[in-house]
């Protein structure tokens, strides 16, 4: 059928995660909270994180928000990938994901679920959809003051 070449973009995993995300919601208690958006389309992601007592490791992470299949599936896969990771490890994953969106390498075995997103790199206008949650995560982890209210949005556009 004519839409066949879109199957590379809309992998079954992406459609499934879009339909039934595993990590939708808010963590309790909230240690880090960050909202990200793409102002030109209005998509938003509301990320909440729970950290261990030493504030070094992500114990839990969930997201809420409204967006396209690419944006929401990416957020859902991201949450699985960074849960249990230290903050520096998670930041490395962010880097690596953004690099993959620019055409860089796939993830190795342990995080290979994220490779479902690789097809997005072929659709330049959709890369910002895939990066939205990751961009918000980077802000959440890098902000020097532990933020719990997270009322401000960070824009994922015009940044890279």
């Amino acid at each position: 059928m004519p839409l066949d070449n879109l199957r590379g973009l809309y992998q079954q995993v992406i459609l499934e995660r879009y339909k039934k995300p595993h990590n939708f919601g808010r963590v309790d208690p909230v240690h880090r909270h960050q909202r990200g958006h793409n102002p030109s389309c209005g998509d938003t992601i509301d990320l909440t994180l729970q950290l261990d007592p030493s504030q070094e490791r992500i114990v839990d992470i969930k997201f809420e928000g409204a967006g396209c299949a690419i944006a929401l599936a990416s957020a859902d896969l991201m949450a699985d990938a960074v849960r249990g990771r230290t903050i520096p490890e998670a930041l490395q994953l962010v880097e690596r994901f953004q690099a993959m969106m620019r055409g860089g390498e796939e993830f190795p075995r342990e995080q290979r679920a994220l490779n479902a997103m690789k097809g997005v790199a072929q659709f330049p206008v959709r890369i910002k959809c895939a990066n939205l949650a990751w961009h918000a995560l980077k802000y959440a982890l890098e902000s020097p003051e532990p933020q719990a209210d997270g009322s401000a949005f960070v824009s994922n556009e015009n940044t890279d």
Partner: protein
Amino acid sequence: MAVSPLSSFKLDHSFDLAAQVRSDFPILQRQINGHPLIYFDNAATSQKPLAVLQAMDHYYRHCNANVHRGVHTLSNEATDAYEGAREKIARFVNAPSPQEIIYTRNASEAINLVAYSWGLSHLERGDEIVLSVMEHHSNLIPWQWVAQRTGAHLKFIQITPEGELDLEHYRSLLNDRTRLVAVTQVSNMLGSINPVQEMTELAHRYGAKVLLDACQSVPHMPVDVQALNCDWLAFSGHKMCGPTGIGVLYGRRELLRAMPPFLGGGEMIADVYWDHATYADIPHKFEAGTPAIAQAVGLGAAVDYLSQIGLEQVHAHEQRLIARLLDGIQRIAGITVYGPKDPARRAGLVSFSVEAVHPHDLSTLLDEQGIAIRAGHHCTQPLHRYLRVQSTARASVYLYNTLAEVDCFLDVLAEAVEFFSAALS
């Protein structure tokens, strides 16, 4: 590739406008992802006919010089071309005088000009500015600033469940404190056509001024500023076959004369001293610095092009397309259409959402088949919030689109919806 002679254009339903004009638009030859381009994003910007491209090319090759600044031949020719375009635009919207046509970068700048110049100098605490809930951000943000700086209040006309401006509600908002009504003539999201002539008359009864955002009307239907009797009218060249970088503010002469300048610099002055200056008469008072000369020339050519075809003709053609599109789209399960359901009450655009399918995803699927539509909030975030929809998809047509393209769009849309429903069920 000349425009067909005037005589061949008569309102005749057997005659297909698109068939006559398509070859005037070189970009329509393009293939996108292996399919002929179907350009349905005309509300964002239109394509340009060869006549416009050639007018700009000719200007740069043969007449390029700065305007109003030299006595040499080229400067004189450039000035004539620049001012000649102003006269064409004045005739196009039936402005009494070309002096009432001010060149800006786009409609947004035209509205900002009125907000900064007139708004900040004429409005005070407690004054009221009436807008509608369907305004584009360009006709909202400047008034938010004016309100914040002057203490004036913003009031918003609601819409009916059909998606049309609620005239009763509008009437109830008008009072002696109303100083300005700033509304769009055609909604770029709902497609509804607002009764701006009647609205202007009502506003004037209270002594309020009226600014019309004509971005989605001037390119598509006859607009006569004297018949509408508005005080200002703003539109963009790029949505009406002209180039980007040029827009227009029409303003009533006495009003423009009484308004302070907006930007300062060369061209807009009469006499300049170290510590003060006097200003040029309109329109030049509002055109500081070297203007977008080639773009003005291009817009003049666009106006010639559209005038030869006739805006009644363009409007009638778009209505035929949109009637078919509206009818077809409502047959696809899971689609919600925004705005009036009666095609006769609409301009040539339709915004819609598909259950469980995000407009981005839909747009990518359509693009794969060469179809360009808009996905997002179309610079009307508050309206989307008001309608409780996060974002929508929008198809918008123009004179060169065909019924065959509408049918192809409907087929691909149905298929795209099917693709997602199957995957998500």
